[in-house]
């Protein structure tokens, strides 16, 4: 990483509209920049000139050098103004920051990925990694929940993965019309049907905190112990380097100790309200 406090200009190579409020930016470094290296699970601070900066997970393939991909949901001042950005525009990038999904540790084991909503974005690099190294892992299950069928992120990719014979993909929605033939209900309901052995699985979980809380219970019911469950936490972040104090989660700084935590290492504070 160059200077961790100073954003470097990246040019927007492509803007893809994903959902009504969600878009993906493919960014390339400007000038004589080196390749951008990151590990699945990490995030960048994205700067929109004069507006501000936001922490956004990297949602692209760590195997693709020289480009970094972010999927952004327009929910605040900075992300809403970023929604107006077009190909050729520039954003600032600081990073990559934070801990990573345990891709090496999971080798030789079943991998179960449980996510909800835009939580699929920080897990997509992990999925790419598993698929690129498919032989190193046991059974692979991707369980995804969204509010409605039109809120399903990366739908084409999910369908493509679903068509593979070496990955099982299950999606569910909270509510749907008659054109939906899939599951309806919360994502935790998919776990008992997931094609994995709970006693030999590593679980990667990302979604709203309440979803992750219930997912941990459901994983435990399947025999997955808390030291094999990894969750990605979200907190307010300003600096990403442990100076601003905003992202504290008990004694942890989510920016540098997280965002990915092994669940048994945070479970004492995870259930405390307003920690």
């Amino acid at each position: 990483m160059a200077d961790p406090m100073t954003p470097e200009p990246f040019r927007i190579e492509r803007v893809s509209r994903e959902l009504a409020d969600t878009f993906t930016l493919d960014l390339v470094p400007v000038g004589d920049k080196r390749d951008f290296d990151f590990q699945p699970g990490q995030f960048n601070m994205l700067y929109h000139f004069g507006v501000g900066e936001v922490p956004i997970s990297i949602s692209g393939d760590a195997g693709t050098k020289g480009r970094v991909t972010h999927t952004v949901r327009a929910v605040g001042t900075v992300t809403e103004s970023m929604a107006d950005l077009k190909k050729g525009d520039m954003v600032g990038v600081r990073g990559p920051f934070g801990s990573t999904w345990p891709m090496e540790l999971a080798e030789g084991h079943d991998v179960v990925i449980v996510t909800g909503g835009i939580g699929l974005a920080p897990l997509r690099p992990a999925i790419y990694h598993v698929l690129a190294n498919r032989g190193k892992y046991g059974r692979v299950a991707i369980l995804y929940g969204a509010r409605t069928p039109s809120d399903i992120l990366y739908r084409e990719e999910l369908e493509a993965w679903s068509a593979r014979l070496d990955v099982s993909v299950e999606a569910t929605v909270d509510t749907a019309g008659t054109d939906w033939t899939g599951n309806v209900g919360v994502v935790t309901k998919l776990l008992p049907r997931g094609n994995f052995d709970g006693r030999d699985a590593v679980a990667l979980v990302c979604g709203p905190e309440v979803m992750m809380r219930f997912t941990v219970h459901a994983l435990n019911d399947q025999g997955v112990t808390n030291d094999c469950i990894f969750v990605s936490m979200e907190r307010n972040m300003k600096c990403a380097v442990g100076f601003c104090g905003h992202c504290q989660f008990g004694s942890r700084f989510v920016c540098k100790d997280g965002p990915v935590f092994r669940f048994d290492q945070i479970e004492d504070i995870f259930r405390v309200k307003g920690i």
Partner: protein
Amino acid sequence: MAKCGSAKDAVVIGTDGLDALIKLLAKDGYDVIGPRVESGAVVLEPVDGVDDLPAGWADEQDGGHYRLTKIDSPAIFEHVVGPHTWKRYLSPPAQTILRARKRGKGFSVEEVVDAPKYALLGVRACDLKAISLQDRVFDNGDFVDKGYFARRNKAFVIAVNCTRAAGTCFCVSMNSGPEASCGFDLGLTEILTKTKHVFLLAAGSERGRKAIAELKKKKQVKAAAAADRAAAAKAVDAAAKSMKRKMRKDAARLLAANREHPRWEEVATRCLSCANCTMVCPTCFCSTVEDVTDLKGKTAERVRRWDSCFTHDFSYIHGGTVRRLRSSRYRHWITHKLSTWHDQFQTQGCVGCGRCITWCPVGIDITEEVRELGKRRT
């Protein structure tokens, strides 16, 4: 704690010598910052000479109470700590850290480091400890705050040993005072008897020794007599002995074990969430950033400002504020200060300066809150 400034090598200067020291540092290019009386409080602002210092003023401090009183004494350092802390200079309340300029469809960004050369005069032992704790925060093993260390490394530190404790002090129980034993360039102890008013002056660094040598050239320095050293030690000892408040030794464990406790609801009925405690705390380091542009939108700046965990915005993420309740915000602050700080930085986060007690509008006392938590275990 290792003794860095040896009292054995100490010399004695008078008020003229102190004045000469201030002027010497100013001549060397330092902005000398020291205690002075403004708006009814001792604040840390630029000083030009010994006449700017608060001679004849003492402070009366208690929970939610601060008054300066005129005393019949020429003592300069009879006051203890006021609402300002040295973080005001080393990690300023507002600092521009980045400047960006539009260039065609893109922009360029440059880092901004503003690092004046400060001489900090009158740093008490608790505040000296606080500076060392902030050093740890801004060099956390993964990242280094360049701006902070640019200011910090230039700073010339003149410590003052406390010869009086304020009503809210509890540095003895935090093992951080009242004697400054390490981390200064020069250490001062005021000695005031019926017949003389002098300062025992010890060097704690090479820079400090050079400053004493300069003062010697100006004939401002006398050898310290055994009686001077004894008088200084006695005065500091008396300050330690007169300290009324103390922190429980098991505060870190108590807070870690009581994240759910009825006391949090109780303190929330008194706490105004005003953030005063975090602003006056010498170790609180939290900040936010503001990105602003000029009117044409051609240049942009990022300003880093002090922030407080007592605001709703502090923990806001999409969907709501994490610490929505006042009880959770108070719990976060005190738990961070006294417990999780140890996990994060392997040091204490509180130095016992008592400012948070004095400047709390309703007089919430950090030592009392820990004591109460210990009384009623859940």
